[in-house]
C-alpha cells in the first residue's frame, strides 16, 4: 500500500495528510461564513429601506438585547391539521421510539471512538515498553471500531426514520424547529458526511497506518482525535435542538427567530445537557462494549479467546464506571441550572408530577452499584490471592443491601385500610425514618464508599504490599474509610434534628467525604502497591459465568436508566413542544404515567439490543476470515503479562 520509505518522507506525508484533513474540517463552515456575510448585506439593505422590526429575546435580557425579527412567529398548532397519526396509536410514542433508538445508536457510535482513542493511545504508549501489551490494546481498539462501523450505518438509517416520522406525525412542529435552525442545518449535514469520511479512513487505514508507535500511527491517532471532535460537534448540534425545546432562547415571546443562531444554540440548558450527555454516552458505550465482550466471553471456544474477552469486558466496564462516577455531579449541575432557568420546572421534577420517576432512578442506581460490586467480587475470583478477602465480601454486600433497603423505602406508602389501621397512622414509626432525604443521601454515599473500598481491594488483592510503612498505610486507609463512613452516618442522623434548609446543605460534606475516600484512598493504595510482590498473575478467562451475566445486567441498567431519564427530561416540558413558545395541541399533550413509560422503555431497550445483536452478527460475518488471526493474537496476549496500569 503506502510505500513511503525513509523517516523524513513518512513524516512529511503524515503531516500533509493531516493538514489536508484539517482543511476539510473547516469546509462545512464556509457556507455559514458566506451566509453570515450575505445576511449582513441583506440587513444593511433592509435598513436602507425601512426600519426593521425589533423584538425582545425570551432569555437573553441585557439592556441591548433586541434582535431583528427574522422569522415567522410560532404558529399555534391545530389538531388535526398540524399533526399526523396512524390510527389510534399515540403519535408521540412512535416518535419516542424512533428518537430513543436513534439516540441509543448515536450515543454508541459517538462513545466507541472515545474508547478507541484512549485504547489506541495506551497501545502506542505501551508499545515502546512492551510490544505485546501495546498490540493487545491496539487490537482491542480495532475490534471496538469494527463494531462501531456497522452501528454507524444503522444510526444513519434510524436518523432517516426519525426525520420521516417527524414529517409524517408532527409536520407543524418540525417546520417550526427546522425554520429556526435553518442557518445551521446544512452544516449539520456536511459534518455528518465529514464524520463518515473520517470514520472510513480511520477504520480502513488502521492496518495500513499501523507502524507500532511511529509517525503513521500517531497520524492515525490524530485522525481518531478528529473523528471524536467531529462526533462531539455533531452531538452538540443535535443537542441544541433538544435543549432549545426545553429552554428556548434567541427567539422572542412569539417564537420569532431573532437572527442570531448562536443565541438559539447557546440556550440556558445547552451546556449542562451537553456535558451530561457526553458523560452519559461514555458510560453507556462502556456498558455496551462490556456486554458485547461478555457475550463473546461466553461464546468463546477456548481459554485464550475467553481471556481476551474477559480482559476486554473488564476494560470496557472500567471505562464505563469511570464516566459514571462524575455523572451524578453533572446531574446536580444540570438540576441546578434547571432551577435557575425555571423554578417551576425544577419543582415539577423533584417534588411535583415527576417525583416518582426519581424513585425509579434510585432503583436503577442501586442496581448499578450492586451489580458493579458483584462483578468485582466475581472478577476477584480469577485473581490469585483474593481468597484473603473473600470473607469481607458478605459484609460489603450486607452494607449495600441495607443501604438499598433504606434508599428504596418510599415516603408515601401504598396500603389497604386494614394495614393503615394496624400501623396506626400514615407514617411508620420506624420505617418512616428511611423515607426522608437524610436517610437516602446517607444510603447512596455509603454505597459509593463501599464500591470504592471494593475497588481498592480489587487493586491489591493479588499483591503483597512491600513498602516498609505498609502498616501505617493500612491504618491510614482504615481511618480514612471509617472516618468517612462515620461522618456520613453522623450527618445523616444529625439531619433529622435540624430544619430542612440546613439539612439540604449537609449533603455537600457527605459527598465530599465519599470523594475523599475515592481519590485519597485510591491514590494511597496505588502508592502502597509500588514495588509490591505479586502473588500470581490474573487468570484472564477464568471469571465465572455469573460475572458475565452481571455485565449484561450492568449494560441493561445503563440503557434503561438512560431511557427513564430521557422520559423525565422530555416530560418536564409538560404540554409544550418548545417550552412556553409552541404549545402541544395534539391529543397526546398529556404526560404519560410512569408505568407506560416503563413499558415503552423496556420495549425500547429490548429493540435496541436486538438490533445490536444483528450488528454484532454482521461485524462477526465481516471478520470471519480474520478471526483466526485475531484469535492467535488474543492467545498470545492472554499468555502475556498484563501491566498493572490496566486496572
Amino acid at each position: 500500500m503506502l510505500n513511503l520509505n525513509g523517516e523524513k518522507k513518512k513524516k512529511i506525508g503524515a503531516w500533509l495528510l493531516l493538514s489536508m484533513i484539517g482543511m476539510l474540517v473547516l469546509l462545512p463552515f464556509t457556507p455559514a461564513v458566506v451566509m453570515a456575510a450575505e445576511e449582513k448585506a441583506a440587513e444593511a439593505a433592509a435598513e436602507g429601506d425601512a426600519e426593521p422590526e425589533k423584538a425582545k429575546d425570551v432569555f437573553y435580557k441585557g439592556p441591548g438585547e433586541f434582535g431583528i425579527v427574522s422569522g415567522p412567529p410560532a404558529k399555534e398548532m391545530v389538531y388535526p391539521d398540524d399533526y399526523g397519526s396512524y390510527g389510534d396509536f399515540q403519535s408521540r410514542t412512535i416518535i419516542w421510539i424512533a428518537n430513543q433508538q436513534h439516540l441509543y445508536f448515536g450515543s454508541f457510535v459517538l462513545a466507541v471512538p472515545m474508547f478507541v482513542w484512549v485504547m489506541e493511545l495506551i497501545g502506542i504508549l505501551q508499545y515502546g515498553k512492551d510490544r505485546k501489551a501495546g498490540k493487545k490494546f491496539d487490537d482491542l481498539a480495532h475490534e471496538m471500531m469494527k463494531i462501531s462501523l456497522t452501528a454507524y450505518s444503522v444510526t444513519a438509517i434510524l436518523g432517516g426514520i426519525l426525520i420521516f416520522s417527524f414529517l409524517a406525525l408532527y409536520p407543524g412542529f418540525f417546520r417550526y424547529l427546522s425554520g429556526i435552525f435553518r442557518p445551521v442545518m446544512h452544516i449539520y449535514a456536511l459534518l455528518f458526511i465529514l464524520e463518515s469520511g473520517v470514520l472510513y479512513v480511520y477504520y480502513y487505514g488502521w492496518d495500513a497506518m499501523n507502524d507500532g508507535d511511529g509517525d503513521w500511527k500517531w497520524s492515525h491517532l490524530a485522525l481518531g482525535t478528529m473523528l471524536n471532535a467531529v462526533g462531539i460537534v455533531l452531538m452538540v448540534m443535535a443537542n441544541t435542538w433538544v435543549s432549545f425545546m426545553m429552554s428556548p432562547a434567541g427567539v422572542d415571546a412569539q417564537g420569532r427567530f431573532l437572527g442570531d443562531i448562536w443565541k438559539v444554540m447557546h440556550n440556558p440548558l445547552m451546556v449542562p445537557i451537553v456535558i451530561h450527555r457526553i458523560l452519559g454516552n461514555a458510560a453507556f458505550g462502556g456498558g455496551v462494549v462490556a456486554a458485547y465482550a461478555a457475550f463473546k466471553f461466553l461464546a468463546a471456544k477456548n481459554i485464550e479467546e475467553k481471556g481476551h474477552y474477559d480482559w476486554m469486558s473488564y476494560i470496557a466496564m472500567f471505562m464505563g464506571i469511570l464516566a459514571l462516577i462524575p455523572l451524578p455531579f453533572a446531574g446536580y449541575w444540570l438540576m441546578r441550572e434547571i432551577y435557575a432557568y425555571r423554578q417551576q420546572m425544577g419543582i415539577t421534577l423533584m417534588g411535583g408530577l415527576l417525583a416518582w420517576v426519581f424513585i425509579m432512578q434510585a432503583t436503577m442506581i442501586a442496581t448499578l452499584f450492586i451489580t458493579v460490586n458483584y462483578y468485582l467480587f466475581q472478577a476477584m475470583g480469577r485473581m490469585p490471592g483474593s481468597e484473603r478477602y473473600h470473607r469481607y465480601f458478605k459484609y460489603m454486600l450486607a452494607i449495600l443491601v441495607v443501604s438499598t433497603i433504606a434508599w428504596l423505602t418510599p415516603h408515601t406508602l401504598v396500603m389497604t385500610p386494614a394495614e393503615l389501621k394496624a400501623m396506626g397512622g400514615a407514617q411508620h414509626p420506624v420505617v418512616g425514618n428511611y423515607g426522608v432525604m437524610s436517610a437516602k443521601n446517607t444510603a447512596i454515599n455509603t454505597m459509593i464508599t463501599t464500591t470504592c473500598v471494593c475497588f481498592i481491594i480489587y487493586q491489591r488483592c493479588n499483591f503483597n504490599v512491600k513498602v516498609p510503612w505498609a502498616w501505617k498505610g493500612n491504618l491510614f486507609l482504615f481511618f480514612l474509610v471509617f472516618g468517612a463512613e462515620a461522618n456520613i452516618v453522623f450527618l445523616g442522623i444529625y439531619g433529622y434534628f435540624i430544619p430542612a434548609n440546613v439539612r439540604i446543605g449537609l449533603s455537600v460534606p457527605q459527598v465530599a467525604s465519599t470523594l475523599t475516600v475515592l481519590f485519597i484512598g485510591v491514590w494511597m493504595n496505588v502508592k502502597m502497591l509500588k514495588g509490591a510482590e505479586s502473588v500470581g498473575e490474573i487468570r484472564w478467562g477464568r471469571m465465572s459465568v455469573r460475572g458475565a451475566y452481571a455485565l449484561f445486567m450492568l449494560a441493561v441498567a445503563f440503557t434503561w436508566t438512560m431511557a427513564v431519564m430521557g422520559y423525565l427530561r422530555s416530560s418536564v416540558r409538560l404540554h409544550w413542544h418548545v417550552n412556553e413558545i409552541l404549545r402541544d395541541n395534539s391529543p397526546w399533550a398529556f404526560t404519560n404515567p410512569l408505568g407506560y413509560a416503563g413499558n415503552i422503555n423496556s420495549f425500547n431497550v429490548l429493540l435496541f439490543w436486538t438490533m445490536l445483536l444483528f450488528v454484532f452478527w454482521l461485524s462477526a460475518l465481516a471478520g470471519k476470515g480474520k478471526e483466526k488471526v485475531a484469535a492467535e493474537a488474543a492467545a498470545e496476549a492472554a499468555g502475556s503479562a498484563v501491566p498493572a496500569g490496566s486496572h
Partner: protein
Amino acid sequence: MAKKKGAGIIVFKVALWYCTILGIFAAYTNWLPQIRGDAPEAAVAIDVSAVTPEMLQEMGEKIIYGSHDPLGVLARGEGPIGKGQCPLCHRFFMEQKADRCPNMIALKTEPQKLLQVSEEARSHERVKEPRYEEAKKRLADGEKDSGIVPHAETGGQYLIESEYCPNCFVVEGFGLKGTNDTVSPMPIINKPPIQLVDTEIVAVVSYLQMRDDPSKWTAKDDWEAYFGEELGANEEDAAPAEEKPAGPPVALGSESPEEIVTKMTCYACHKIPGISVAKTGAIGPLLIEGTNSANRLKSPEYQAAVKAGKAHATTPREYVIESIMDPGAFIVPGFADDMMKDFKHKFTVSGLDVLVDYLLAQDEAAALADGMDRLPNEKEGPIKKPEAKVDTGEAVAKNKSMSDDKQTVKVSSSGVIESSTFIGLN
C-alpha cells in the same frame, strides 16, 4: 459451564436474562403509583358581564388549588396545585410546606391578636411601604420583563400588579439571592408557563380578597382602575360565549333595572319607585336607598350588627350590595329575615351594579312622585304624614308556598298583604 455450547443456546440464555431484567423493571414502574399529567386546558376567556363575584372566587380557588377542597387534597398527602401553581411557593394553609414566597395565610388564631394577617389586609399596607415608593422610582421606565411601571394605589391594585409584574415590588426577604430584593422568583402570571388570562387573574385576586371576608371584593374595579380599560375588552380571541346554562335566572349587566327587578321578583316583597311592576310589595322595606341606606348605616341596630361581626358595610353602596348578597347580615327593624339568600348566585357583577346604582338613585321624592310610601312597620315612619297604623305582626307574611309560580298578591286598602304566594324557589 458454557464450554461446549453453541452460540445459539448462549444467545437464547442471554435473551432470556435480558427479558427477565426488563420485565422486572417494567413491572416495578407499573407497580409504583401512576400519575398522569394532563395538559391544562387552554385559557378560556370569560364573559365578565355574566359572572358573579362568587363565581369569580370559586374560579380563583380552582385556579390556585385545582380543587375546591384544597385541605382535603392536602390531607391526602398531595399538593393542591392548580393551573396557577401558586401553592408551590406560597403557603395558603398551615399544613402546607411552602416558604419560597410570602405566605397567604388568612387565619386568626387568637381572638386578641391577629397573628396571621390575610394577604388582602396586608396588600393595603404594602402599597404604603416606603419600599414601594422606592420601587416606583427605580422602575419609572417600566420593569424590564413586563414593561409595567408600578402604580398601584390600593391593596387590590397591588395584588393585581404583582401578578402582572412580580418584580415591581418584592416583599422584603423574598427576592432572588443577591438581587437585594429587586428580582422576584415568581413568574409573570399572564405569560408562559402559567399564562392566565386577565379574567383568571381577577378571579385569583377575588379569591384572595373574599377568602376571609366576602365584602372585601374589589378585584374587578381594581383591575379596571389599574389598567384604565374595561376587563375583558381586549380578549378578542375569547371563546364564543357558552350556551346559557339551564338553572335559575341570572341578572345581567345588559338588562335594565326594570328587567332585573322582574327577573329577580323583587317586586313580590318590595316597592321600588320607577319600576312599574313593583308597586305593591309589602313584605320588605320600601327601596329608596338614596335615603334609607345612609340612615340605616348610622342606626344603632346596624352598628350592633357590625359589632356582632355580621354586617360589614361602611358606605351606602356597600350596604345595598350587602343587603342583596347577604340579606341576613342586617335585618331592618320591624322585618323578619325572610329575604331569599340565593341572590349572590343570581347576580352578575355588572347586573348587580345596574341594580345597586338604580336603587341608590331612589329617594323619598321619587317615592312620593310614584305615590308610594313606607310600610307602617318601618321605623322611619311614613314619608307622607299622617298615616294609618298597621299591625306589624300581619305585615310579616310568612305564607310561602314553594310550588306555585304565579303570585296572587292581594292588597288591602291599608296596604297590608292578606295572602301572598311567592315565586317558586329552587
